[in-house]
């Protein structure tokens, strides 16, 4: 920040502002705002609007809520106490809000000091609207940007507070509220926290909004404000007395488009909100202050885009200044006015014509900007492109290989709200008591409704809901069918999840769990006896009975997997002496056929997690095998994921449930594969 505040551009912007605060006395300030503030500090009251109207003041003077009044109060009071003209207090408040907005944008765009100074601090739109015309739109723009900032930091209570404050400062800010709601609702990780936003919003509304409702004069000034009617000015007459109002129409279409983006991340949220603001202000030409609302969003867009965007917005700003100056004379402090229309001999009808032409050019550039934002910031957005379709993971492995545990650990990362799980167990053809199991094991594909499983995976991958049953391992019976909705991540696990070619084609990532056989038997014995209530003898017998089918139907599926995860004891003999004194220590063998990013993974596993890693390339270089040993913690795994696949972190739950040890390692390796598989969507 120090770097930014010591930059020559900062001083230039500050000097321009100081000159305008001292040298100009805009009509709106001298006739409305300052007299209103003066009256409200002269007689101590909590309802300055009633006092103002009772004193014969114009209803146009201050059609804003408590937030706006409270923001301007302190410095106006200071100006009064020190005996300086009150419009200095007003101007300095705007300057303070302006600086705070610069700082907020700096927090949103760290390291972009020069860009911020060039496109925000020296923005002709901000300078002209705020300091030459005296319009106070900077205050609601600041409050809204702070709300956006806290939204980004997932501090939703504060985001709600500032959003309510922005609306209190200027009711028109209410147009942003549906975008906030859509963002939070359509982002499932954030949806879990939407109550926090409402709590903050309601608290602030209670403090700033409810008292305002008791001020009849305030309400009269607010709703009697002719600014409110400007949104109806641009209309298409349909004959008779019926018209289509373009601003509400565009707004509603924008809301629909944003809704259709489906899952939004922060960048998409700010881009869509900014685009909506831009289109709304373009259609309301008589409100030069409204353009200030779109500036923070345009700054964020310029930071994301490039030189062309900066040039376009530069031209847009210049056209704004020219078209505004042609129709709006500036009032200097010495009482003289500066009418550019008169100076350029384009006053009257000619002036209007020139201003309209300039405005047309400005709207044209504005529309181009809106199209560019849609194209670059939305449809080219990584998150947008990656989240168009559900991501489908297929997990196969023998019984007891840890499919459910693994699926749960992946679900813990993305959050239960974003994942739908489909288990192959729910597609066993018969309940456990049925006689067919005497001649067939569960591992036989014929004993499972693989066609139904496949149809359901296809439907879920297509975004459709399915009707499914659940196999209860305690009772050995299928439940009645129930509806399962598709979701952002589909995890299809089962003994035969990779068996059918068409199933394999459905998956974005195919995983096979190839656990060490002795270890598998130990895990399965523990699970079947302790969790599922099976007899020990029966479980032991089933190992032998199932072995031929496992060899024939299950293990060959590993040949089709993109990723094979094999959990093994560090030494085979360890299994014989496992007890409390000799806990089992495991290693993970990872085989990948996906053009695995094993070099980066090796770096973070060794350098960050402190693990031992061996990498072996197969003879034909088609497969990479990594053997990983050592202890690692969930925090290390999280740090490693941030380094290894940062792009995917936006898809994770808030906060994601990272795990310690081998489960955490499996999470990390799976995430890196998901990241790579998602990247294919760019190709």
């Amino acid at each position, binding site marked *: 920040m*120090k770097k930014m505040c010591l930059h020559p551009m900062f001083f230039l912007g500050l000097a321009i502002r100081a000159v305008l605060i001292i040298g100009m006395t805009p009509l709106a300030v001298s006739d409305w705002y300052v007299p209103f503030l003066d009256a409200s500090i002269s007689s101590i009251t909590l309802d300055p609007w009633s006092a103002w109207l009772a004193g014969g003041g114009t209803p146009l003077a201050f059609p804003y809520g408590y937030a706006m009044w409270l923001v301007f109060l302190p410095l106006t009071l200071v100006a009064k106490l020190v005996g300086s003209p009150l419009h200095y207090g007003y101007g300095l408040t705007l300057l303070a809000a302006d600086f705070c907005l610069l700082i907020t944008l700096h927090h949103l765009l760290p390291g972009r000091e020069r860009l911020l100074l060039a496109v925000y601090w020296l923005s002709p739109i901000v300078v002209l609207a705020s300091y030459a015309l005296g319009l106070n739109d900077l205050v609601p723009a600041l409050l809204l940007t702070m709300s956006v900032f806290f939204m980004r930091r997932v501090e939703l209570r504060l985001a709600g507070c500032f959003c309510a404050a922005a609306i209190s400062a200027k009711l028109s800010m209410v147009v942003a509220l549906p975008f906030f709601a859509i963002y939070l609702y359509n982002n499932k990780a954030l949806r879990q926290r939407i109550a926090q936003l409402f709590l903050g919003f309601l608290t602030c509304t209670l403090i700033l909004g409810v008292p305002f409702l008791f001020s009849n004069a305030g309400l009269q000034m607010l709703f009697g404000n002719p600014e409110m009617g400007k949104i109806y000015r641009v209309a298409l007459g349909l004959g008779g007395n019926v018209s289509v109002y373009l601003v509400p129409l565009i707004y509603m279409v924008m809301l629909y488009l944003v809704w259709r983006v489906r899952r939004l991340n922060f960048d998409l949220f700010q881009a869509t909100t900014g685009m909506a603001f831009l289109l709304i202000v373009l259609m309301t030409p008589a409100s030069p202050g409204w353009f200030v609302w779109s500036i923070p969003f345009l700054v964020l867009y310029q930071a994301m885009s490039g030189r062309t965007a900066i040039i376009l917005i530069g031209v847009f700003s210049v056209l704004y200044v020219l078209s505004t100056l042609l129709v709006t004379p500036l009032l200097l402090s010495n009482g003289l006015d500066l009418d550019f229309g008169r100076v350029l001999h384009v006053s009257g009808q000619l002036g209007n014509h020139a201003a309209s032409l300039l405005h047309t050019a400005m709207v044209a550039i504005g529309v181009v900007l809106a199209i560019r934002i849609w194209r670059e910031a939305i449809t080219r957005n990584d998150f947008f492109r990656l989240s168009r379709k559900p991501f489908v993971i297929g997990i196969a492995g023998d019984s007891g290989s840890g499919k459910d545990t693994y699926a749960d650990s992946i679900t813990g990362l993305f959050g239960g709200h974003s994942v739908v799980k489909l288990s192959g167990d729910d597609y066993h053809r018969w309940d456990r008591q049925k006689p067919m199991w005497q001649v067939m094991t569960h591992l036989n594909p014929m004993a499972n409704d693989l066609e139904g499983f496949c149809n359901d995976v296809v439907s879920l991958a297509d975004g459709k809901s399915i009707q499914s049953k659940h196999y209860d391992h305690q009772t050995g019976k299928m439940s009645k069918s129930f509806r399962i909705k598709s979701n952002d991540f589909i995890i299809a696990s089962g003994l035969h999840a990779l068996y059918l070619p068409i199933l394999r084609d459905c998956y974005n990532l195919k995983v096979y769990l190839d656990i060490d056989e002795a270890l598998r038997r130990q895990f399965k014995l523990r699970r079947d006896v302790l969790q599922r209530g099976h007899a020990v003898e029966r479980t032991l017998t089933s190992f032998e009975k199932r072995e031929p089918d496992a060899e024939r139907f299950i293990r060959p599926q590993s040949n089709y997997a993109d990723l094979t995860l094999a959990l093994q004891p560090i030494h085979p003999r360890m299994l014989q002496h496992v007890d409390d004194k000799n806990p089992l220590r495991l290693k993970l063998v990872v085989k990948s056929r996906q053009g695995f990013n094993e070099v980066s993974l090796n*770096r973070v596993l060794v*350098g*960050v997690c*402190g693990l031992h890693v061996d990498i072996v390339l197969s003879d034909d270089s088609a497969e990479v095998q990594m053997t990983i040993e050592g202890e690692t913690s969930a*925090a*290390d795994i999280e*740090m490693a994921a941030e380094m290894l696949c940062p792009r995917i972190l936006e898809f994770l739950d808030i906060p994601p449930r990272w795990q310690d040890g081998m489960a955490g390692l499996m999470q990390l390796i799976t995430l890196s594969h998901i990241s790579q598989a998602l990247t294919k969507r760019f190709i």
Partner: protein
Amino acid sequence: MKINNQERFARLPDAFLFDTDNTLYPYDPAHAAAQKAVRDKVVNTFSIMPDDFDQAFREARGQVKTRLKHTASSHSRLLYLQRMLEIMGLGSQVLLALDFEQTYWRTFLSNAVLFDGVKDLLDDIRLLGIPTAIVTDLTAQIQFRKIVYFGLDNYFDFIVTSEEAGYDKPHEAPFQIALEKMRPKGDCIWMIGDNPVSDIRGAREKINAVTLQKTHAGVELGTDANAPDASFSEFAALRKLIAKLGFQR
């Protein structure tokens, strides 16, 4: 870029030596966050007051530093934390000491951010074909981890830690070992570091290096015997100087 001895910058060097902590990244914010994380963890684990932690840690650190003087181990967080637990009357508590140490370094790394332009500078040097080495205090394990974390392992040809040299800078051992490893073609060596005594005075007195001090908030510019040949706050400025000398070459 402030150049104090213009005549020492007539040409590009034959080798670059870099300090790490507070030279390639700002040390204070990372250390403050890490220390806070450990303090919070200790306070929560033992239900003690933060001041008690600070006092015990300060005492432990003082004792370790006094005992080990200017060696790599004198900076060991693990030893500080082990001694702190002992001072608190808990014995060595090996697992807790390790846990707290890992908390420290994990938080430290996740809060450490390279200064702007470091990788660009190292790329420039790589393209000029001049060898580079890190000469740093502290133990090899954590310094290696930092280098990997920052993704700098492919940029530097060599690294010398005080654990390897047996002495912290400004002792001549780390500097000499670096030169032995690098075998520079000539005797013009540039040392870039933040500490006016360890890096600047040490490198000039022990290996007659051209010294460049990286300055930023909290770094005191060396004066008199500790005065560097040049100082800079932004790596972009150093890149410009190197580009200028490279062009002349």
